[in-house]
């Protein structure tokens, strides 16, 4: 079936052959973190990562939550975790969050935090241990595998705001450290 219409090309817009209006939208939002995450972010401000324990199945969960999603039991205890962990899964990405292209890749990863139960982790970035920025995919794969040990690099205490970005990134470290 053929549709009647007037196809447009980029050129028609650039040369102003057709009339148009552009509209830029700013949508503000405020996200209420709730009890558990508020405590978690407050902890980050002090350079600490907190998990939450389920009294029934004894899991330590991070990010923390006020009830266990497996037992439906309220959680009861804050557990101070380490700022080290292991790579659970990672990706080498040439895209920014808004889908714009990057010249050099970044490495978002789920990091299982030491002290929390298996499979419990947070999403963050992994940086090159010395030069921070990664050159290419091959370089990333030299340093990072599933299971690689990583450590958080924190912002200066004064700059922390109680956000996930209070951790600048994680860097791979040697086993046993």
């Amino acid at each position, binding site marked *: 079936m053929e549709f009647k219409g007037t196809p447009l090309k980029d050129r028609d817009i650039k040369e102003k052959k057709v009339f148009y*209006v*552009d509209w830029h939208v700013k*949508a503000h939002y405020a996200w*209420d973190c709730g*009890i558990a*995450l*508020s*405590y978690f972010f*407050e902890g980050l401000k002090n350079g600490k990562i907190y998990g939450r324990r389920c009294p029934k199945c004894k899991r330590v969960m991070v990010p923390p939550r006020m009830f266990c999603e497996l037992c439906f039991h*309220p959680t009861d205890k804050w557990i101070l975790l380490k700022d080290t962990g292991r790579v659970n899964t990672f990706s080498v990405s040439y895209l920014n969050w808004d889908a714009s292209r990057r010249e050099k890749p970044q490495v978002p990863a789920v990091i299982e935090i030491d002290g929390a139960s298996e499979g419990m982790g947070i999403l963050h970035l992994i940086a090159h241990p010395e030069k921070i920025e990664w050159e290419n995919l091959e370089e990333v794969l030299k340093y990072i595998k599933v299971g690689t040990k990583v450590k958080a690099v924190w912002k200066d205490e004064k700059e922390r705001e109680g956000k996930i970005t209070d951790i600048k990134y994680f860097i791979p470290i040697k086993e046993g450290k």
Partner: protein
Amino acid sequence: MIEKIDKFDKIKILKGEKVGWHRYTYGNGEEIFFKNLIDKKFFASKCKNCGKLFIPTRIYCEDCFEEINEFVEIKELPYIYSYTLLFKDLEDNDLKEPEIAIFLKWENVEGGIIHRLKEIDLDEILIGKKVEPVFKEKREGNINDILYFKIKK
């Protein structure tokens, strides 16, 4: 046990902003209306079957589905069909002074446009009054080529 939170400063709220944009092309029908705004003229579509006039311009009659090829200038001034007082802008910020948004119609023409009304006391009765446009000096073919409308004295 669940902790009872009685101090609300312990609850964190993360604020942010999402930005997006879009481009709307008028298309063959509506474009004629906006093109003629550059010359300070208001154009309507005229259906050759039923004779009805439409603003903004379009290329099909919505009553008899006839294709429209005739576009005529409407020289008469529009009148205020309805109005609203606005106390906030599009992003929910308070306005220093309320603005008036009006829906304009032309006598014996279907449709109309929405625009601003200025140079007016709020006490004046508005509906039905004829208004005249105040144009921008540099016009590009969009609705903001008209700065606002004012009451015809």
